[in-house]
């Protein structure tokens, strides 16, 4: 058997399909790596090894049966182990959202995104760590302790999908689901040297995704290579009657992964507002070099302007907390999870919420409550919604002259654990380059384009018009066909069982 857990996802799928390796062997191999690396990385909030092996055995039995009965359909992802960010409901598995207010909560149903992947045959090994209710850019806001960046254990993996990113970077799973409200897939992908997709808003059902900022939340996916994101993305995508905001649009065609990398005729825009004083020079240099690489493959690169970019931080940090303050009103100590005891009803609310929500969640609930409160609504919430329109129009105008936009994912590489926890504004400003895509609802695809002098990964993102994910995949894949950043594995993960 030549298969190893370092194999890219699509190779693993082929090996499973050809019977070169069993799902049980694949699943056990990843579980062994999780055992070895989890104490240092803390990527998971819950693990289900026995359940995963049982699921894997069922997958193997189903494949064996299909071999005897060739007319029996075989689910396309049969036996593939993955991890799921702990903000998505999976029936029978705890769903904490990284919060003590949902300690021990077990959802009675499964998110549509996860349901579709289970129907396609995946095996779920566990739920990954996240900033509490996906509010954060470092995974330090998890009530269950931070995740460590596999490239440097003293640094953050980014967030909020930091557990998924770290697990993928350390090859503890071949791919993991994340969510992206303001960059929560792309920024951790960038910080950990993996690829991450934030689909078009509405492309994947939000049913069973715990709501944070409902007009911004999307389910995404992380894997080392962009081509390996595709099978999970495409099986989750599509209209869901259970989500009134899911889009009823045709699925994009699968790119030809074997085609020669040729970007002739493609117009790439480089927004000048994404190269600003104060950002790490190595990040700007690596992104410019990557764009030059795309030009060498035939693309026509031109500078563009997205003039309202500087307002993305205040717009996002008014709209998302406002939506959050309403969405999180449901955690009242009555219907979901534990209650702080009190003799009067009002005190149950105050105590349960005050003691079980963490500092950042309380901060955002208060920020949103303030922005929506009488006397401040017009100055904050209404004005933010109008500037959101201007940000959206920036993109619409840009896509009249270019096909895709290339930009850095974050102004810096991974920062140190603890460095920004006491300065929320500094943490918010870290999101400047990822927020606009969420506000405009357009897809973004992040992938590694180099390392800084400390050996920390640098990411670039491509953004495209709504529903144009396949174009982003084609361009990023051409880059990865001709570079090898995405094949680098953190030293801590190299010597482990493989």
């Amino acid at each position, binding site marked *: 058997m030549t298969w190893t857990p370092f194999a890219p996802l699509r190779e693993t799928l082929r090996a499973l399909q050809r019977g070169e390796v069993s799902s049980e062997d694949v699943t056990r191999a990843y579980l062994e790596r999780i055992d070895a690396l989890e104490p240092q990385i803390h990527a998971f909030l819950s693990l289900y090894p026995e359940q995963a092996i049982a699921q894997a055995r069922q997958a193997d039995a189903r494949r064996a049966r299909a071999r005897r009965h060739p007319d029996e359909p075989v689910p396309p992802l049969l036996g593939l182990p993955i991890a799921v960010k702990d903000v998505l409901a999976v029936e029978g598995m705890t769903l904490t959202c990284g919060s003590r207010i949902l300690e021990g909560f077990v959802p*009675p149903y499964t998110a549509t995104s996860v349901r579709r992947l289970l129907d396609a045959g995946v095996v779920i090994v566990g739920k990954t760590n996240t900033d509490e209710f996906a509010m954060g850019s470092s995974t330090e806001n998890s009530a269950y302790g931070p995740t460590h960046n596999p490239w440097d254990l003293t640094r953050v993996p980014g967030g909020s999908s930091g557990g998924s990113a770290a697990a993928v970077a350390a090859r503890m799973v071949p791919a993991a689901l994340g969510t992206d409200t303001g960059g929560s897939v792309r920024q951790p992908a960038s910080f950990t040297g993996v690829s991450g997709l934030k689909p078009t808003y509405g492309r994947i059902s939000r049913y069973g995704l715990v709501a944070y900022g409902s007009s911004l939340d999307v389910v995404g996916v992380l894997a080392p290579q962009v081509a390996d994101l595709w099978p999970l993305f495409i099986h989750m995508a599509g209209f869901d009657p259970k989500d009134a905001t899911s889009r009823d649009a045709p699925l994009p065609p699968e790119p030809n992964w074997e085609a020669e990398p040729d970007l002739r005729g493609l117009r790439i825009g480089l927004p000048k507002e994404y190269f600003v004083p104060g950002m790490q020079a190595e990040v700007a240099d690596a992104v410019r070099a990557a764009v030059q690489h795309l030009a060498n493959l035939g693309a026509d690169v031109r500078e563009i302007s997205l003039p309202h970019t500087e307002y993305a931080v*205040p717009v996002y940090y*008014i709209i998302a907390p406002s939506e959050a303050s309403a969405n999180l009103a449901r955690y009242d100590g009555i219907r979901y999870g534990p209650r702080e005891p009190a003799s009067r009803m009002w005190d149950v609310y105050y105590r349960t*919420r005050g003691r079980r929500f963490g500092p950042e969640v309380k901060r955002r*609930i208060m920020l949103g409550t*303030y922005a929506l409160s009488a006397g401040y609504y017009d100055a904050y919430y209404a004005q933010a919604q109008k500037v959101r329109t201007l940000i959206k129009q920036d993109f619409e105008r840009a896509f009249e002259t270019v096909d895709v936009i290339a930009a850095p994912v974050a102004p810096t590489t991974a920062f140190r654990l603890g460095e920004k926890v006491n300065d929320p504004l500094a943490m918010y400003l870290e999101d400047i380059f990822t927020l606009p895509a969420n506000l405009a609802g357009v897809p973004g695809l992040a992938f590694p384009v180099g390392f800084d002098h400390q050996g920390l990964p640098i990411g670039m993102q491509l953004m495209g018009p709504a529903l144009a994910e396949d174009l982003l995949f084609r361009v990023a894949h051409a880059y990865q066909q001709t570079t090898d950043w995405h094949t680098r594995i953190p030293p801590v993960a190299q010597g482990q069982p493989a």
Partner: protein
Amino acid sequence: MLTREEVLHIARLARLELTEAEIEQYREQLSAVLEYFARLAQVDTSGIPPTASVLPPRSVLRPDEPRPGLTREQLLANAAETEDGQFKVPPVLE
């Protein structure tokens, strides 16, 4: 700068119990954040419609037909306290 009373007012609206240390911390942090947000006022938005959703508007109404849902047992399974198939809460009125 937010006042202590304003912080308490917001916390009350949001049903959040805060410690003394939290009141002071949020007063400082939220003030700094709101001060940064003041730049939004510089943007001329006259005649610009608000964006509540990026989706093209469409009707999501459907016929009001009953469908299977979660059972009472499933819905109550995560409750802190139940009695006779109901959520149980402490007295609301005294």
